[in-house]
């Protein structure tokens, strides 16, 4: 049987990926350039008995999906820059209360209203540091329509597996371009659901670490009664200020993601075997980078690309290893050097970093990258 194919926009693909992953609740607030996700979900969810709600603002949308997730739904919200800023308060709530949810954020120019229809990659640091306090962060940065579909599925799987909010952040170019997409068959791609409790309601504790760093999560209305709070909590879910418990719980929340970086971090190595000039790119910028690498190879330059697919946790290990082997890194991005700073941290002075930073709402073109490659000596 031949597979179903379609010609879709990144945002539409994201919505269909969510549905494949079992999403049955969407809460949102319209914002360019992400609104198509909400529109598709409003059409598709009721068909499968799922729920779509347009809330009064992004804080409300984030709150609604967290509430729905606690009631057992697989949940999604979509937004862009200004909306992401509003969601940050409750993304933190999702982190501390350990509630699975997926936040799809299309990166447009900022800060503030910025450039609503212009592409950008300047929310990648907000994905990690946007909400206050120490917390885990998982952020995926797809580069094509097909990959947006697949990464949204993976985001649901990771959020359910690790009981934490997961962000998917395409830039506006990826979100709005149209490409051919091949849909997987039902059952072809793994779909993960949260671990539910194996103990009786009387014995259940929502943060019971005897089951590991990711405790099973019951849902409201399933016979289990439990308490959820945004305060630092004990294993039974009730607030505490006991120093040793707070310290241990905070460390666990971060560790459950960081210690599993190998399971979460994904990347693509393109022409790296003998490369001495390596472009580190992500999202639509990586498409220009691939073009530039091919052009450079034709001109006899030993160029390659390390493409980041998982921005958080950052691929520290891989970039550290590369830094010892290359003459230099080129980091093109549609911001003023957010990824470049991370690369610098990983390179530990072993390789120079050449940035190409654009915040004018224009994509970075292959020529700019090729020219920069020639500067690396």
């Amino acid at each position: 049987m031949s597979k179903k194919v379609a010609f879709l926009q990144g945002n539409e693909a994201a919505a269909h990926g969510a549905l494949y992953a079992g999403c049955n609740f969407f809460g949102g607030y319209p914002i360019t350039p992400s609104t198509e996700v909400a529109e598709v979900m409003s059409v598709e969810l009721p068909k499968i008995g799922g729920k779509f709600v347009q809330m009064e603002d992004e804080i409300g949308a984030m709150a609604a999906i967290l509430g729905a997730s606690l009631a057992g739904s697989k949940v999604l919200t979509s937004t862009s820059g200004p909306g992401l800023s509003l969601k940050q308060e409750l993304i933190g709530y999702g982190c501390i209360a350990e509630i699975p949810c997926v936040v799809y954020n299309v990166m447009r120019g900022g800060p503030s209203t910025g450039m609503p229809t212009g592409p950008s990659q300047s929310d990648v640091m907000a994905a990690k540091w946007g909400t206050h306090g120490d917390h885990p962060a998982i952020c995926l940065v797809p580069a094509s329509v097909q990959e947006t579909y697949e990464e949204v599925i993976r985001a649901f799987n990771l959020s359910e597996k690790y009981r934490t909010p997961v962000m998917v952040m395409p830039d506006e170019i990826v979100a709005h371009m149209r490409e051919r997409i091949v849909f997987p068959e039902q059952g072809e791609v793994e779909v993960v659901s949260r671990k539910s409790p194996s103990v009786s309601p009387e014995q259940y504790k929502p943060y019971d670490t005897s089951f590991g760093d990711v405790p099973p999560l019951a849902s409201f209305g399933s016979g289990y009664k439990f308490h959820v709070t945004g305060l630092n909590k004990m294993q039974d879910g009730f607030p505490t200020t006991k120093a040793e418990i707070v310290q241990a719980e905070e460390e666990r929340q971060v560790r459950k993601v960081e210690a599993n970086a190998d399971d979460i971090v994904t990347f693509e190595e393109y022409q790296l075997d003998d490369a001495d000039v390596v472009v580190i790119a992500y999202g639509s910028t990586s498409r220009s980078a691939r073009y530039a690498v091919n052009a450079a190879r034709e001109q006899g330059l030993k160029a390659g690309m390390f493409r980041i697919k998982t921005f958080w946790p950052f691929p520290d290990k891989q970039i550290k290893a590369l830094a010892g082997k290359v003459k230099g890194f080129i980091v093109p991005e549609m911001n003023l050097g957010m990824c470049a700073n991370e690369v610098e941290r990983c390179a530990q002075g072993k390789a120079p970093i050449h940035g190409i930073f654009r915040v004018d709402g224009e994509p970075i073109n292959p020529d700019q990258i090729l020219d920069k490659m020639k500067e690396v000596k």
Partner: protein
Amino acid sequence: MAFDYDKYIRPGKLPHIWCPGCGHGIVMKGLIRAMDTLGLKKENTAIVSGIGCASRLPGYIDCCTLHTAHGRAAAFATGVKLAKPEMNVILCGGDGDGTAIGGNHFIHACRRNIDMTYIIMNNYIYGMTGGQFSPATPTGHKASTTPYGNPDPCFDIAKLAIGAGATFVARGTAFHANQIDKLIVEAIQHKGFSVVEILDDCPTTYGRRNKYKSVIEMMNRLKEVAVPVKAAEKMTAEQLQGKILTGVLYKEEKPEYTAEYAKVIERAQAK
């Protein structure tokens, strides 16, 4: 026989954090009696709150409880209810939580007419943070941030709820403790978004700044200003000066949100 509150209180979670004389505990007892009257199943009941002294209430009750972020209870609760319409969803919190930072979520929950009951404990002040003025603090009154008297006009919370589209709105007071459970029972039975405002007191941060010598004095004031709606019908405008109406202030039957969404599902599936 005395009512047994313990059957709804979470074992080991008392004493509560509230100050002696705080009205929030009176409201909690009213809620428990109402839950008992209705025979609400604990595991099928979610109690959702924001942040503040009043919002600590859910932690003491043995149900599915969700202590959210400041002002966000109504929006979290909307997610719970829409995902599981078969659950009883009760919200609670303070005047500040519900009408300042949470004002937007509050009015939109009213507008949607989603079947939940919101108990607002109005003590006219931000109690938890030490007594700053709230949108319910009367003009001229003292708070830690209105040392010269509050210049702001205040909300009439019940009117706000009615204006925003809530289909059941009632008001009671912490003094009239025996009426609280009856209002809450009626509110929960109502199909739609119901709001029960309970005027209570914060002796610690509001009473002492506004020349109340004791909790008893604060309670006596509630007793004096409260006029049941029925009694008010026979009173002149002059007699009603400075009084506050109590009882069921508004009731209307209107399409309920989760039922309407079920119809959306039907329409989508019929296509």
